[in-house]
């Protein structure tokens, strides 16, 4: 078999691996690099359990060859938490019980993160359409959608320059004047 040497960045770390020419990125991640967060559900791009970001773009790792990853920046679910501090989406998925068996969860987390990076205030419909390529057979989706919307609301609050405080300050200013 024709081996390909691939140089990438995975979750911020320069990473090199060798794989067979017809090996998918998903197999390379799981079997060569031990990154087993991305799951193989269908292997044909229908379920989204293997969702990863490649150069910031959400893709199915099963629909891409490892060889295609040369020079790419790859983000997997393993890169979401900061040490033991969970990503807000991960925490909300726990709070909302947005998972049962957990096989689809890494894919949903990566896909939802990609959505919130593009749109910090998605409607429920936008969330459902964005996540239509991620299948879950346990939750009925509702808890997942609520977890994503709740995370978006929290992240918006956290990133706002606190207009309430600013108002107070100006009111105070008027009083003293």
């Amino acid at each position, binding site marked *: 078999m024709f081996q390909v040497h691939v140089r990438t960045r995975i979750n911020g770390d320069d990473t090199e691996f060798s794989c067979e*020419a017809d090996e*998918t990125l998903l197999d390379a991640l799981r079997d060569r690099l031990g990154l087993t967060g991305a799951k193989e559900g269908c292997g044909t*791009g229908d379920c*989204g359990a293997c969702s990863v970001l490649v150069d910031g*773009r959400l893709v199915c790792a099963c*629909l*891409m060859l490892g060889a*295609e990853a040369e020079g790419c920046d790859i983000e997997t679910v393993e890169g979401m938490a900061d040490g033991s501090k969970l990503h807000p989406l991960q925490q909300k998925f726990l709070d909302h019980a947005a998972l049962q068996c957990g096989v689809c969860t890494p894919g949903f987390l990566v896909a939802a993160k990609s959505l919130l990076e593009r749109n910090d205030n998605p409607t429920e419909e936008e969330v459902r359409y964005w996540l239509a*390529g991620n299948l879950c057979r346990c939750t009925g989706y509702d808890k997942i959608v609520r977890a994503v919307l709740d995370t978006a609301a929290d992240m918006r609050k956290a990133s706002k320059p606190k207009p309430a405080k600013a108002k107070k300050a100006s009111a105070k200013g008027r009083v003293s004047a």
Partner: protein
Amino acid sequence: MEYFAPASTKEAVKLLGTAKGKVHVMAGGTDLLVRMKGGYTEPDAIVDIKRIAALRKIVRAGKGWRIGAAVSAAEMGEDKALKKAWPGVVEAANLIGSTQVQGRATIAGNLCNASPAADSVPAMAAVGAKAVIAGAKGTRKVAVEKLVKGPGKTTLKKSEFVESIELPEKKKRMGDAYLRFIPRTEMDIAVVGVGICLTLDAKGKCMAARVALGAVGPTVIISAKAAKALVGTTVDDAALDALARACAAEAKPIDDKRGTKEFRKHIAGVLARRAAIIARDRAKENS
């Protein structure tokens, strides 16, 4: 299997001509990898065209557009000017698969995969898109509907590949639209797809029209009768009824698990009617 990622069209053409055995061109790979996984094809070599910088871009070609064969559907959706010019084509591209699939899939690949149900093909055919084909003797252009010979078969010769798709200039009072029917809301294969492009005159009368029907024949059907039903009218109810009848008559579908012949013929008419209204309204907005 060998994997090649040439940096130029010339190099790609050379590889396609010299590689031994079964050679596949790869753009997004979202169809090719599925076929490999299912054992439907076992390539001896893959020529990945995504490393050819020129094929990663959407550029203006004269007054029209050139969409590189390695441009993803998602990238098309993010190009505001392209979306404004040919919303039907961009919307069709953004119906292919999921968000994940759209991150990789290309309209050139959608065309060359030669599925009768390909979403972007009727939309492209309606606006008169051309495939730019690179080969050993340089490039040639063919209308997209001429590239597909039948399910899974194209007219491409060995060492040829589609390097870009050209869309024509969007003139005043032109509008396009693509609609498809699927039993779900998302992530499904068209049971019927209809692409329509029409041009109105200053008084709102239809001067020219192209109607392309997908998934109701082995290849996309360009219906001259359906176009005739619109030309010379204001695309009013009577014209839309005639359009629907023409599309139902021209559709040559098969019966399968996704729809019966009778149902598909009926839906071809219904979708054509709705797509013509959208195209007409877009043409009016563009006056």
